[in-house]
């Protein structure tokens, strides 16, 4: 089993977790303003396609990322207009967005590139891998932490940035308030709608970028439905991380670990079973976290009642 449990396992964990981390950070933004965006899966898929398109057309990964970012802004605005301005059901909009993503990417794949299934070409420039000399020198951890693609590091930075933004800046405070107490925010002269728009756009960009990592960092190709429900896994991570960036990050890492472990176990266990594992584990984790949280709350209430009784 030493070919399963080795350094590569942890490297793979980081690689597979990153799209989920980025997507979950986006999803968390909308969750903070009280919107449940399950359309992140579609946003991820479209981001993956447009990143490949940009990279292929201009022969540069920068353009790939730029394409994904611009698309993310547009998708975020689109989502905002439908779910807030037009007061549509977020759930329906999310599902419809995922269906649109499936249809649009396959349609464009066939119309622009004339291929079915997947598109790969030497013309697609992948995201650069980054070697950090001082990190590399750390024994054991060095090879895991260094030599990853750009977005892996970006995602780590973003976890900290998102946390600081949400909990340490006035804007983040307003953003959270627009979800928890929109009327109070309005009374203080700020518009909850604007906060929701901001969250939507951030979500669109992060989800779309997570797709870019999928198609330019993880693999160098686009294939039909390549997001493979990772967006939904991100939603689950947001739920069991309680919308708190560092906790959501840990949840996504756990998913990545199981996914990576599964891939490395394929020699011993049929691949269908190992592919199944992350989804099953995610469900089990979600149940466990929800139950624990309720227990804690119940305990707190009991303690409160005991105090009142005195």
């Amino acid at each position, binding site marked *: 089993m030493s070919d399963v449990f080795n350094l590569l396992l942890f490297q793979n964990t980081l690689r597979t977790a990153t799209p989920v981390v980025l997507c979950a950070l986006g999803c968390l933004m*909308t*969750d*903070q*303003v*009280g*919107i*449940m965006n*399950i359309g992140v899966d579609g946003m991820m898929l479209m981001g993956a396609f447009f990143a490949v398109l940009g990279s292929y057309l201009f022969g540069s990964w920068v353009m790939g990322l730029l394409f994904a970012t611009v698309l993310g802004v547009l998708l975020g605005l689109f989502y905002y207009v*439908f779910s807030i*301005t*037009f*007061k*549509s*059901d*977020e*759930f*329906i*909009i999310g*599902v*419809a*967005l995922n*269906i*649109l993503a*499936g*249809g*649009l990417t*396959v*349609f464009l794949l*066939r*119309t622009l590139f004339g291929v079915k299934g997947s598109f790969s070409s030497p013309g697609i420039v992948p995201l650069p891998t980054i070697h950090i000399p001082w990190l590399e020198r750390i024994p054991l951890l060095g090879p895991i932490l260094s030599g990853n693609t750009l977005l892996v590091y970006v995602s780590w930075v973003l976890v900290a940035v998102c946390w600081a933004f949400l909990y340490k800046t006035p804007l983040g405070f307003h953003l959270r308030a627009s*979800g*928890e107490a929109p009327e109070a925010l309005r009374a203080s002269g700020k518009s909850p709608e604007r906060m929701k728009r901001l969250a939507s756009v951030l979500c669109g960009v992060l989800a779309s970028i997570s797709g870019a990592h999928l198609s330019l960092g993880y693999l160098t190709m686009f294939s039909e439905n390549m997001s*493979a*429900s990772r967006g*939904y*896994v991100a*939603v*689950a991570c947001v*739920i069991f991380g*309680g*919308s708190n960036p560092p906790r959501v990050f840990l949840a996504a890492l756990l998913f990545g670990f199981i996914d990576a472990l599964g891939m490395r176990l394929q020699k011993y266990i*049929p691949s*269908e*079973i190992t*592919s*199944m594992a992350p*989804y*099953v584990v*995610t*469900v089990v984790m*979600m*149940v466990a976290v*929800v*139950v624990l949280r*309720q227990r804690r709350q119940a305990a707190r209430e009991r303690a409160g009642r005991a105090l009142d009784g005195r």
Partner: protein
Amino acid sequence: MKTGFMQSIRALIALKPRQKLTVQYLLSLLIAVLLAFLVGAGIMLLCGYDPIACYAAMFKGALGKPRAFGNTLAKTVTLCLTGLAMSLAAKAGIFNVGGEGQLYLGGLAAAVVGARLNGSPVWIVTAGALLAAIAAGGAYAWLPGVLKVKLKVNEVVTTILLNSAAIYFCSFMANGPLKTAERGIASGTDAITQTAWFTPLIRLSNLTTGVFYAAAITLLVWYVMTRSTVGFEMKMTGTNERFARYGGIRADRLALWGMVFSGAICGVVGFLEVFGLHHRFLTTISSEFYFDGMLVAMIMRYQPFGVILMSFFFAILNIGGSAMELSAGISSEVMLIVQSVIIFFMAAEGGISDIVRRNAAARRVRRNARRAQKEARV
């Protein structure tokens, strides 16, 4: 405690089933369909295709020949059943997004039991497979249902994740322990005996005697939702949950049973696919059939009659889309785009018509004010 998910779920449950199909809503639907077709035409023009020829090919491909018409009807049946499954759960106050997984498991169970019973009288094969499919689909829906009702775990996310788990599991079974020894079958189970196959109603089409099962289920669901006590309880819970609770309705139990029946219907869809079309379980048994049906149900606000009609329309888009790809050359996914545009517009219908009405009212106020000013001057 983070509010987003809980809030939206509560809002979903509180709001959705109360809506009805009004004349205004149906008019909006017509406009949405026309707009979506225009968007589709725009895409076709951009890609250098003639939209009129494409749409003509689509309608001809879906309705032109008896065989095509049969396929369209068969597709209608699938969409209608999955749509009703979604509606039933939604009306009971719970969202079943896991129908795809329930369908797969139902199909697998039907195929395995059906093949085991080969050699028995046909009615035993059919009944055994049907029961197995119902049990498999129902049980797989019961799990997220119980988690939701007892532990308050968000059912939307669990059902979606359980979909992937079920599909991988079925694919494992069909490629591994249950793989048929027959040659030329890539990943499938043993075939059921030919005498048990449903007979086609229209030659060479996918429309088989399975349609009678579908009709029976449709009738049953319609009766339960609109005529029975359970349906009344669903309506009460949807209208005013607190009042319903004081009236002695147990919303939890209602939601759980809604989920189980929804899963059972999805299981039956799997059974129908196996006995009507593939005659064994294949890993390609469904391509997101449940999601199509779910959207039909959402567009028609979970009203059984509306779901039946809309299923036919979406079946035309679906079957016609493939025919259009063959004859006009444009990728059939353009119809998926058209469908999602319809859904976007219909989801936004309330908001858009509110905005239109508000603007009209504002204009009226302004006009009256101007007139009053003029009169004052005179």
